[in-house]
């Protein structure tokens, strides 16, 4: 028998289009228009999952996005064919079924009906509030081996997919005058009113169909039409207006500053065979002049023992399933309530052919009209009556009733029922108002927090601000729509919509329901998804949690995917009772983005794979790739790391490259260096103030190493600066530092020294740089240079010439070295760089030279003790710390950072200083970042003297070398220190940080 719970007629499903789907491998039938939840309920399937902590059997509770239990994994036909995996943690209440959809329950092993993890339920005393903090504390070593694997295995939301997502996602930006979040009666009225005023409107609703409660409102009429027909007309009007964008299946999940909102549109999940060109989801980033929040209200569960059993549902959900989907979710349905609206659910279900076993109202005197109508429908009514428990484990079998009296709660027998509808009244949905930083006002008579004054250009309308009654809600929406349009610069009058029916009525209940059961043995759940009970909340208070934010974190109540939209008010009420404090004093936790979970694909959209980040390549890149270079990422740049030959590994290749540079010549792509052209009458004075070095006397055609500090006196960048003319300098920066250095210079130039006549221009992309280093460097470039005298006298070390290479290619030729060998850097326009490179390469190859990569460059510079900013320095290092006091222009009255160099901490004894380290055994390569101590095996808690900053196998030294920052390091030269490692301390000798040619004679060769 299939669809045994389906009514013979009615609902918005398409009974002419049956749909076959599977749940946990079993085939079921539903109809087009069903959600997975409604189709399962049509087949009398309530048990759909196991809870997070106790693995208790759980059923479908709601009909909306606040669903706490019915989280499923869904494999869609399209993703499945493309090799994709099931998407976990989708709410069955939002998943639209289509032919071939395969859904699976979660949190159970090996099967939903028999779950081994359910032993947690029996061990529940171990899992009380704060159990994470209490149980998993000690000993520390248990964390990795015992606690964490246990928590990971037990913490069972769905499994994350292991393969890359095969779906595509899109992103779009939009602007509008009025964004309306929520397409129920208030939202539709607001959209109509705003659109009629001429505003550009976006109307978004998380459901497949617009209309909200109007889609299941029997008997309500608007403008003389059945409510659902009015919805159709309203959508027709909005759809025909070119200034209106309708976004169904679209959740407004984030409300950010200045009315910037993020929306997730589910584009194809509901389709069996979607157009492959369409994305799975689309992220909308909307800047709205005005926002209308029409997000409705959410029905609140009653907190009674065993309120989590499958078959226990929200009353309004029961009404939605009956009226909208033609599903009566049980053969005998009991209703437990404290408010009028649940009676309406009972009446609608009875009229749809269902059997209502009882209406148990906590109130002594529910409205007489309701009682009368129940009588006419033959529904038994109990007043002052609480549901005190449920018999049945994987499905409600019987419902226990208790009579509330002055003497407490007395048993009032039990009722046979396989479904129990509950309602504690309505909680206005203030999530987005709260995200928009709007305050909330406590309304004691309504037992609800309502939106207070908005901070942003937004207003709430309808039941999300506590308005009740269909006519009132429509009027409120229309007013809000016109007000928003007017604020956005349009004008209009609020339309009025005559409406009858659809009133929710009054009554509400907060907190735990009284009962006559053994309090120690029963559990009444507050937060279904996180398995938090009323007892847990009370225990948290007893254990000293007095703020709701602490209670939330201690118990995890409200931390589930619905962010407590179902649970918060009950938890708050129980906490305030336990604290003996009023609800507003206890406070409400903050609602944050996202409103409902958003899949990572939608957030990433196209920013994945090759499009994740831009890639910068030099003009030499393809040549290096053709030569088989290995590349490394330096910022966004791809840099040639080393050039392996034959079956060389990295170590062999780097050693060969280093030796070749020292013996003959190497060619290196230095294009990624940052370059800034500094021009103007005050250029030299500007450099004087920005760099530690003096620049006034630097001659035209000369280079100087420049060191840059921040105002606190710490090294922030370095590079070689050349003077092209009295008023023109060519500045180089580190590869990663270029934007930061230019910003730093602009900052001082614009905001401190605007009197200086100087212009700064980034020229990083205007010059490719070919470094040629080694004893044969001059030989390698000489045949290509047109008009520059390369002789040592005419063009000594640290000089610069402008000229041409290769018969007319303009060039800035630097004679400089970052290797300790004589060398040149040929700056040419990028368009000619590859040709020049290949010409130089031909000569280098003839001379027995090689191309070398960044790793060899690092080794060569470390052998000379040249620092790399960011490797030897870490933002706390001064010039003196790295032995560079020589770079400071002592006579300059001021430069950025100068005053700070005299601060007490920066001149104190014992600062870390750069030194060299040699391992005593001559063989062991130290690890960069390793700590350095006096003792071989220092006592626990001993502070390190410093750490290793650079460590390489040095071909020139024939042994490993290292640079390190060591407290008082220069005074320790000759001492033996230790580098403690897991396998024992390594003895090292402190040496001068230069390992090759300390006199620098090779530079001038």
């Amino acid at each position, binding site marked *: 028998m299939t669809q045994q719970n389906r009514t013979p007629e009615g609902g918005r499903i398409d009974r002419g289009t049956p749909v076959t789907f599977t749940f946990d491998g079993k085939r079921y039938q539903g109809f087009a228009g069903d959600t997975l939840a409604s189709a399962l309920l049509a087949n009398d399937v309530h048990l759909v999952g196991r809870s997070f902590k106790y693995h208790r059997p759980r059923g479908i509770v709601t009909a909306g996005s606040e669903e706490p239990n019915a989280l499923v994994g869904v494999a869609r036909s399209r993703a499945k064919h493309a090799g994709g995996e099931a998407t976990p943690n989708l709410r069955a209440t939002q998943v639209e079924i289509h032919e071939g959809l395969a859904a699976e329950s979660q949190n159970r092993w090996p099967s939903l009906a028999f779950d081994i993890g359910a032993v947690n339920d029996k061990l529940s005393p171990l899992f009380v509030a704060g159990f994470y903090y209490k149980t998993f504390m000690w000993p520390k070593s248990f964390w990795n081996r015992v606690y964490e694997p246990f928590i990971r295995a037990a913490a069972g939301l769905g499994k994350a997919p292991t393969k890359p997502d095969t779906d595509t996602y899109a992103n779009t930006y939009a602007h509008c005058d009025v964004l309306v979040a929520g397409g129920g009666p208030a939202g539709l009225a607001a959209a109509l009113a705003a659109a009629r005023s001429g505003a550009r409107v976006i109307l978004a609703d998380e459901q497949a169909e617009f209309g909200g409660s109007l889609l299941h409102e029997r008997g309500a009429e608007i403008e003389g039409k059945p409510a659902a027909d009015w919805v159709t007309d309203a959508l027709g009007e909005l759809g025909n207006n070119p200034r209106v964008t309708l976004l169904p299946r679209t959740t407004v999940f984030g409300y950010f500053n*200045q009315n910037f909102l993020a929306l997730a549109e589910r584009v194809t999940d509901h389709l069996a065979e979607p157009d492959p060109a369409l994305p799975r989801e689309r992220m909308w980033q909307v800047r709205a002049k005005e926002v209308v929040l029409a997000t409705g209200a959410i029905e609140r569960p009653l907190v009674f023992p065993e309120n989590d059993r499958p078959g226990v549902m929200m009353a309004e959900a029961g009404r939605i399933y009956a009226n909208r989907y033609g599903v009566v979710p049980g053969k005998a349905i009991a209703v437990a309530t404290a408010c009028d609206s649940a009676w309406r659910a009972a009446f609608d279900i009875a009229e749809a052919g269902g059997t209502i076993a009882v209406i148990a109202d906590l109130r002594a005197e529910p409205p007489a009209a309701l009682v009368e109508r129940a009588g006419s429908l033959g529904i038994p009514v109990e007043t002052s009556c609480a549901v005190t428990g449920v018999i049945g484990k994987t499905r409600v079998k019987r419902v226990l009733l208790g009579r509330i009296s002055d003497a407490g709660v007395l048993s009032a027998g039990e009722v046979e029922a396989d479904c129990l509808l509950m309602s504690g009244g309505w909680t206005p949905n203030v999530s987005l108002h709260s995200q928009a*930083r709007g305050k909330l006002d406590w309304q004691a008579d309504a037992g609800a927090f309502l939106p207070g004054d908005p901070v942003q250009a937004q207003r709430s309308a309808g039941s999300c601000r506590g308005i009740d009654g269909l006519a009132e809600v429509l009027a409120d929406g229309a007013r809000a729509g016109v007000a928003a349009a007017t604020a956005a610069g349009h004008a209009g009058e609020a339309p009025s919509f005559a409406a009858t029916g659809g009133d929710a009525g009054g009554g509400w209940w907060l907190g735990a329901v009284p009962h006559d059961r053994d309090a120690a043995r029963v559990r009444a759940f507050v937060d279904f998804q996180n398995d938090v009970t009323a007892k847990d909340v009370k225990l948290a208070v007893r254990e000293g949690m007095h703020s709701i934010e602490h209670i939330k974190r201690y118990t995890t109540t409200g931390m589930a995917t619905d962010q407590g939209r179902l649970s918060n008010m009950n938890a708050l009420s129980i906490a305030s009772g336990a604290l003996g404090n009023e609800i507003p004093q206890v406070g409400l936790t903050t609602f944050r983005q996202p409103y409902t979970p958003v899949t990572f694909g939608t957030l990433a959209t196209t920013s994945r794979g090759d499009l994740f980040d831009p890639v910068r390549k030099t003009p030499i890149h393809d040549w290096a790739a053709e030569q088989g270079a290995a590349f490394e990422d330096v910022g966004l740049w791809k840099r040639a790391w080393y050039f392996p030959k034959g079956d060389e590994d990295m170590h062999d290749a780097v050693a060969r490259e280093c030796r070749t540079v020292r013996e003959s010549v190497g060619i290196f792509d230095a294009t990624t260096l940052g370059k800034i052209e500094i021009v103007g009458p005050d250029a030299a004075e500007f450099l004087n103030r920005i760099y530690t070095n003096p620049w006034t006397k630097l001659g035209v055609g000369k280079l100087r190493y420049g060191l840059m500090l921040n105002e606190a006196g710490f090294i922030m960048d370095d590079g070689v600066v050349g003077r092209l003319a009295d008023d023109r300098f060519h500045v180089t920066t580190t590869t990663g530092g270029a934007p930061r250095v230019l910003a730093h210079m602009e900052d001082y130039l614009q905001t*401190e020294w605007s009197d200086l006549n100087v212009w700064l221009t980034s020229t990083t992309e205007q010059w490719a740089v070919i470094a040629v280093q080694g004893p044969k460097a001059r030989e390698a470039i000489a045949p290509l240079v047109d008009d520059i005298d390369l002789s040592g006298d005419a063009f000594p070390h640290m000089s610069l010439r402008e000229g041409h290479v290769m018969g007319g290619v303009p060039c800035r030729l630097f004679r400089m070295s970052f290797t300790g060998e004589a060398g040149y850097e040929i700056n040419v326009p990028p368009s000619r760089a590859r040709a020049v490179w290949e010409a130089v390469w031909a000569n280098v190859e003839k001379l027995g030279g090689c191309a070398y990569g960044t790793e060899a460059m690092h080794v060569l510079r470390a052998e000379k003790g040249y620092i790399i900013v960011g490797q030897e320095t870490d933002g706390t290092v001064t010039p003196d710390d790295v032995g560079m006091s020589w770079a400071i222009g002592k006579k300059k009255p*001021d430069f950025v950072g100068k005053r*700070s160099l*005299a601060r007490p901490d920066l001149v104190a004894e014992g600062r870390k200083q750069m030194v060299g380290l040699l391992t005593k055994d001559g063989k062991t390569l130290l690890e960069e970042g390793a700590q350095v101590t006096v003792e071989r095996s220092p006592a626990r808690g001993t502070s390190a003297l410093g750490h290793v900053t650079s460590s390489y196998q040095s071909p020139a030294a024939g042994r490993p070398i290292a640079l390190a920052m060591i407290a008082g390091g220069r005074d320790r030269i000759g001492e033996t220190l230790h580098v403690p490692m897991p396998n024992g301390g390594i003895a090292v000798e402190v040496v001068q940080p230069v390992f090759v040619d300390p006199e620098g004679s090779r530079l001038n060769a």
Partner: protein
Amino acid sequence: MLLISCPWCGVERPEIEFRYGGEAHIDRPAQPADLDDHQWAEFLYMRSNPKGLLAERWRHVHGCGRFFNAVRHTVSDRFVCVYKTGEKCPDLEALAREGAQ
């Protein structure tokens, strides 16, 4: 994401075009050497960090590239006004009183 007006370009642009530059109107001393350690530390590190209106520096880094100043409310992130570097700091207390009304 904030919307910020650049007083040089005269346009309103999204926050990603701009870079924050800390509190405004902290002038670098003309003669740093004349300051004692305490005074220099005040200049380097001490900022007002108010809960309320703050005059702060922004740079339209992906636009005109120029620095300007803005008065922003640090709780609501609302921009009260923007003005060019070199122009005087508005009376923040008066602005706060206006905003309260």
